[in-house]
């Protein structure tokens, strides 16, 4: 096995002094090490005080999520040699949780948020038999709707890199919202969809910025940002009326009409108040000042729009 030399730059936290700092460890190790094995090597051979969480070493238990070269992931799943940039591999604790010591973060706030959304199934008596002898059947096509989401191992990689949390520390979080989606989709669940959606709304689905970082971080390939879009769709479909659902309806309607979103009228429709109207008026004033013709203010249907509309209708119906 080949040995390679590099620097492990580890962000450490000392709770006694309430101090964070980077420490460089020069190592010469086999090139086959995972990041977790590298950390174990450092703890064993160089500094026994280095603290991190780990257990299964098989990307199952979800203990060792951390930031490796600016991106969240599982230390046990990532090869160290792939992450060496200019001779350095940078290892930091998850960003949106407070460190307890070195790479260990306090997961409690994220678990508390998970508890808020009823992360369990309440059996629907119409579907789930009331005796232990008969089975509660789930058809493969029904399970397929949330199969991927059941792979979540609560590692918090998505949470540790979530942009919405940088804007609001009370934000529920990606994996928590994926859990809401998973139970709404479960045919055995007896909780009303409206109730589950309500649980996902407070500091929830409307604050997501769709940055895709949760998807990029997830070691299981779960796309919480897509699940959040689905939750917004469900909220709209159960009759939720707010700035976001008005936007969603208007967006689709104008794209269907013209091929493009009408951004001139969007604020007015979405805000649905004087503020939105004012934005539209100001835009029109600005356009006139800039010498734009009125037909340039918003989108106009392109040639052959009828065929486009038929295409959309067919996609909706047949795909």
């Amino acid at each position: 096995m080949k040995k390679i030399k590099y620097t492990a730059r580890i962000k450490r936290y000392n709770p006694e002094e309430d101090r964070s700092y980077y420490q460089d460890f020069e190592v010469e190790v086999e090139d086959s090490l995972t990041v977790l094995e590298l950390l174990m090597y450092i703890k064993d051979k160089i500094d026994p005080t280095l603290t991190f969480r780990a257990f299964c070493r098989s990307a199952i238990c979800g203990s060792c999520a951390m930031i490796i070269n600016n991106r969240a992931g599982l230390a046990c799943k990532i090869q160290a040699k792939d992450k060496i940039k200019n001779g350095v591999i940078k290892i930091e604790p998850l960003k949106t949780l407070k460190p307890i010591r070195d790479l260990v973060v306090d997961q409690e706030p994220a678990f508390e948020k998970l508890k808020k959304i009823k992360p369990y199934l309440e059996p629907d008596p119409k579907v789930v038999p009331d005796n232990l002898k008969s089975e509660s059947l789930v058809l493969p096509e029904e399970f397929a709707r949330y199969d991927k989401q059941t792979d979540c191992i609560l590692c918090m990689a998505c949470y540790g890199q979530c942009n919405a949390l940088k804007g609001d520390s009370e934000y529920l979080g990606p994996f928590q919202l994926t859990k809401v989606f998973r139970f709404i989709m479960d045919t055995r669940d007896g909780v009303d969809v409206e109730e589950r959606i309500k649980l996902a709304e407070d500091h929830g689905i409307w604050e997501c910025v769709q940055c895709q970082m949760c998807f990029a971080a997830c070691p299981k390939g779960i796309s919480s940002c897509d699940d959040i879009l689905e939750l917004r769709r469900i909220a709209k479909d159960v009759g939720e009326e707010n700035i976001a659902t008005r936007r969603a309806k208007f967006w689709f309607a104008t794209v269907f009409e013209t091929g493009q979103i009408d951004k001139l009228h969007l604020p007015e429709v979405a805000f649905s108040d004087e503020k939105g109207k004012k934005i539209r008026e100001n835009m029109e004033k600005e356009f006139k000042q800039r010498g734009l013709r009125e037909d340039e203010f918003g989108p106009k249907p392109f040639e052959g729009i009828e065929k486009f509309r038929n295409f959309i209708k067919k996609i909706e119906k047949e795909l």
Partner: protein
Amino acid sequence: MKKIGIYPGCCFQGADIHNYDITTQFLEHMGVEGVLLDRAACCGGGVIDETNKKIVYGLNARNIALAEEKGVDLYTPCNTCYMIIAKTKLALDSDPELKKKINEILAEEGLEYKGTAKIYHTLNLIRDFVGLDEYKKKIKRQISGVKVAPYYGCHVLAPNEVAIDDPENPTILKEVLEPLGVEVVEGYKDEDTCCGYHARFTEPEQKERLAIKPLDGAKEAGADIVATPCPLCHKAMDGYDEPILQVTQLINVACGSTPEEAGINLNKTEVKLSL
């Protein structure tokens, strides 16, 4: 002259109509002929999913098919359009059944998604379509004495499958900015924090809280201007203390356009460039 299909997203429309001029001007400076994909439609913007996510596949299969019909690759300056269109391409190229079904419906409009067109964004267009050496040759004057903080925005670096550079340690924006003569300021606080654009009409305060963070970080690090390739990030972050421009605006100026032609006077937060 090499040709490329210009995909008209919503960043060319309404209050942002000047972005189209910025884009065509940029292509002209690069010696690339832009062919407008005039029947192209909205990419979905991460919003049409809230109606039906299958429509997003349909829309973008059709958008790419329009480029293929004209025998060109597809170029969009918008990070989000790029990400959504590139994600659709990945889905179609890896799922023959989906491709077949969409093509059956596309056939009624006389279109076919073949999978031959590549998807370009400003940054990989410069690197892979024009070539960095050629790009450098197009620069006529230096924008000196200005400290510029590169701001990638999210959707050219995530998800990893469509990232146009190493998502962990991207360098392409620096490589594009340096030849312009500016001093690049990297490693500032919140340089990878999202601008919040996509929360503008779902939770407007969330957008306000986020947009200012990278700007403050850049200012603290001594940058005079933030430069982003993305017109949406630009829109979200313009209007605060620290000015932000689109990279193509700076390129256009360095290639000979006047600041006014490059739309710099349209910024809400004033920008002064020394030429």
